[in-house]
C-alpha cells in the first residue's frame, strides 16, 4: 500500500497566517553532495543473481539498476510539438496533490485539468488494464514500474519537454529503477519510521538498544499500538528489526520469521492495523505506530486545540532507513501527451514542488529544498525534523522494490497469516 491509500481526505497541513511560500526563492543552497554515491553509479544489470520480473524485465534493485527497455510499438512523442487544448486527465491517489498547484497550472497554460483518484494500486491497475480508462498522467510507485512498462501501460518520456528535470537530485534524475528517467520523473520521497506520543510513552525508540523494539515492548500500552496496513511495510520493518537489510528478500524462512515476529505484536499489544497514524497519534487513541514521514510532518494539524506539537515524535534510523519515492508517468494511450509532459515539467519546478509540499507533507526531491530551512522557517516543527528526507538519507536507505510472482505470493500469504491473528 501507499501513504495515500486511505479513504479520508487530507486537508492542508500547514495553515499558518502569512506563510507565503514565495518567500523561499529558487536560488537557495544546493545540497552538498553526500556519501553513498557509489550506489547511484550506473552499473549495468545482467549479472547472475538478478531476478527477472514479468515481461523479461529484470527487477530493479539499488545494486542492480535497470534501464527499462524501449519498445518499437511504444515510442515517445516527437519533439517541438505544440501543447494540446486539454482537458488534461490526471489519475492520482486521493488527496495527493495540492489543489492550488493544479489551479496554478490551469491558469498558466490556459487549460482545464480533471483529476480522477484511486484508493490503492490494485484499483489503479484494474482501471488502467480494463481498456476503458483515458487518462494522461498517472502517479505510480517503484514496485509497479516494471510491470507497467512490460504491460506497455506507460510511454517513454521525451526529455525535450522536461527542462526542469535538472532541478531534481542527481541520483533521482538517473534512478536505479528507471535509468535515464526513461519513463518516469520523481514526485516525492519519504521514509517509514515509528511515531509515538512523547507525553504518553516513557521510553522513546532511541532509548532502546534496538529502537524497533519499542513496538515489541509495548504490552503496557496494549490496544494503543499500530502498524501500517501494508503487506510490504510491516513485514519489512520486522526484517529491519532483525538487521536484515534486504527488504525484498524472497527467502521463505526470513519472510515467515518476519511474520511470526509481527504476530507476536498481536499477543503482546493487540496491535491495530490501519493507516490512521496521522490522525490517531495526534488524537491520542494510538500511542505508538509505524508511520510514514509525510504523515507525521502533517500531524500537528490534527492536534486538539492547545496541545503542543512537541507531544509528537518520529524516529527513523540514520542509516538503512526504509525510504521510498513516488513518481509520475505518462500513460501510453494519453490523448494529450505534450500537455502531459508540460505538466510533469511544471511539477518539477522548484516553486511548485514546494507549494505542493506545504499541502502534502511529502518532500519532493528537489535540490532547492533545504531540509534545515524547512525547520527554521517553521514548515516543520523542530521535534519532527526527522520527517525530512535528505539526499544522504535516500542514498543510505533501503527501498521496497518489486518482487517476482512467487515472491509476491510469499509476502501476501505471510501478511494474510498475520492478519488472521
Amino acid at each position: 500500500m501507499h501513504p495515500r491509500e486511505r479513504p479520508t481526505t487530507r486537508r492542508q497541513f500547514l495553515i499558518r497566517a502569512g506563510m507565503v511560500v514565495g518567500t523561499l526563492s529558487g536560488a537557495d543552497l544546493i545540497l552538498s553532495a553526500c556519501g553513498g554515491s557509489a550506489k547511484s553509479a550506473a552499473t549495468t544489470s545482467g549479472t547472475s543473481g538478478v531476478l527477472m520480473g514479468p515481461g523479461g524485465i529484470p527487477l530493479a534493485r539499488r545494486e542492480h539498476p535497470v534501464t527499462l527497455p524501449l519498445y518499437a510499438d511504444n515510442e515517445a512523442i516527437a519533439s517541438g510539438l505544440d501543447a494540446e487544448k486539454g482537458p488534461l486527465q490526471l489519475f492520482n491517489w486521493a488527496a495527493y496533490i495540492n489543489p492550488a498547484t493544479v489551479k496554478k497550472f490551469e491558469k498558466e497554460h490556459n487549460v482545464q485539468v480533471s483529476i480522477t483518484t484511486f484508493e490503492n494500486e490494485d484499483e489503479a491497475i484494474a482501471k488502467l488494464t480494463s481498456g476503458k480508462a483515458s487518462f494522461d498522467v498517472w502517479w505510480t510507485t517503484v514496485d509497479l514500474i516494471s510491470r507497467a512498462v512490460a504491460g506497455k501501460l506507460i510511454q517513454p518520456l521525451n526529455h525535450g519537454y522536461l527542462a526542469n528535470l535538472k532541478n531534481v537530485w542527481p541520483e533521482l534524475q538517473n534512478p536505479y529503477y528507471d535509468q535515464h528517467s526513461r519513463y518516469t520523473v520523481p514526485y516525492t520521497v519519504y521514509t517509514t519510521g515509528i511515531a509515538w506520543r512523547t507525553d504518553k510513552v516513557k521510553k522513546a525508540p532511541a532509548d532502546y538498544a534496538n529502537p524497533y523494539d519499542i513496538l515489541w515492548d509495548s504490552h503496557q500500552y496494549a490496544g494503543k499500538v499500530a502498524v501500517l496496513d501494508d503487506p510490504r511495510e510491516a513485514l519489512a520493518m520486522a526484517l529491519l528489526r532483525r538487521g536484515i537489510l534486504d527488504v525484498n528478500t524472497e527467502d521463505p524462512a526470513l519472510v515467515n520469521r518476519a511474520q511470526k515476529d509481527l504476530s507476536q505484536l498481536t499477543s503482546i499489544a493487540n496491535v491495530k492495523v490501519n493507516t490512521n497514524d496521522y490522525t490517531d497519534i495526534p488524537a491520542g487513541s494510538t500511542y505508538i505506530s509505524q508511520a510514514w514521514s509525510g504523515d507525521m510532518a502533517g500531524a500537528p494539524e490534527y492536534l486538539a486545540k492547545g496541545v503542543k506539537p512537541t507531544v509528537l515524535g518520529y524516529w527513523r534510523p540514520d542509516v538503512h532507513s526504509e525510504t521510498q519515492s513516488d513518481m509520475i508517468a505518462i500513460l501510453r494511450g494519453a490523448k494529450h501527451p505534450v500537455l502531459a509532459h508540460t505538466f510533469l515539467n511544471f511539477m518539477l519546478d522548484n516553486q511548485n514542488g514546494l507549494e505542493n509540499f506545504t499541502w502534502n507533507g511529502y518532500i519532493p526531491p528537489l535540490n532547492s529544498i533545504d531540509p534545515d530551512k524547512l525547520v527554521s522557517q517553521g514548515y516543520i516543527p523542530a521535534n519532527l525534523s526527522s520527517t525530512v528526507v535528505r539526499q544522504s538519507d535516500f542514498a543510505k536507505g533501503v527501498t521496497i522494490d518489486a518482487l517476482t510472482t512467487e515472491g509476491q505470493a510469499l509476502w501476501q500469504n505471510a501478511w494474510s497469516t498475520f492478519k488472521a491473528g
Partner: protein
Amino acid sequence: MRRVRDWFANPWGRPRALGTITWLYMAWSIVPVLIAILFSFNDGRSRSVWQGFSTRWYWGDPNLSVFHDPAAKSALEQSLRLAGLDMLFAVPLGVGLAIGLTRWRGYGAKPVNYLMLFPLVTPEIVMGVSLLLVFVLLYGIALGTEAQVLGQVTFSISYVVIIVRGRLLSIGPEYEEAARDLGASPLAAFRLVLVPLLAPAVFASFIVVFALSIDDFVVTDYLSAGSPTQTVPIAIYSNARGGTTTPALNALATVMVVVTLLAVGLAYFVYRWAARSQPGTSGRALNEITALEV
C-alpha cells in the same frame, strides 16, 4: 414459592418478567442510535463527550458540515440515486417474478423458486465478489453507479417476491376467476382485478427496497469506483474509527435515517389508506408487513 413462580410464568396473566425484558430490549436497541443522533448536535468535535448544543455539523461549519462538505453531499446524492434506480428496476422485476411463480404450474417453477431464494441466504461478500469478478472479467461493465445498481437490484428482487407473494397467496385466485367468468380476458382480469388488489403489497415492496438500498454496504462498496460513487454507509465504514472524524459523520447518518423514516412513515400511511377497503386484509397494516411468507 409456587405463588412467586406462578406470578412469573402465568401465560394468561400479565407476564411481568417478559414484559420488562421486552421493554429493556427496545431501549437497548434504540437508545444508542438516539444518542448518536444527539451527538450529531454536539458543539465540539467529540463524538463521545457532550460539549453543548449546536447545528454546526449540519450547516454551520463552512468546511466539514454535511451541507458544505462535498464528499458528504456526494455520498447522500449517490445513496438516494442508487435507491431510486434500485426501486425502479427491482420492484417490477420482483412483482412479475412473484406473480409468475405463484401461478406457474410447469416444471420451471421450482428451480426458479430456488434461484429466487438463494440471494436471501447468500452472504453479501460472496455476492459482492462474484459480481465484481463477472463485471470485470466477463461482461466488461465498468465499476460505478451502473454496476452498483445492477448489484443492488439483484438482491432486492427476492425481497419483493416474498412480500408480493405473501399477498398473492392470501388474495387467492377467486377474484380473477370471477372476472374471467364474467367475460374478461386474462390480461384484462390481471389489469383490472389483480393489480389493484396487489397495490398495497407493491407499495410496501417499494419501501423495503428503498431501505435495503440505503443501508447496503458490501455490494455497493465492492462495485464502487472510488469517491464519486461512495454512499453514506461506505462513508461511515471508512471514517467510523478515524481519529479526526467529527460528529459530522453522525449528522450524515442522521440525515439518512430521517429520510428513510420519513419515506417509510409516508408509505405506511399511504398503504393503510390504500388497503383500507381491500378484502383479505385485517386492516392492521403492521400485521400485513410482518406476516412474512417465505
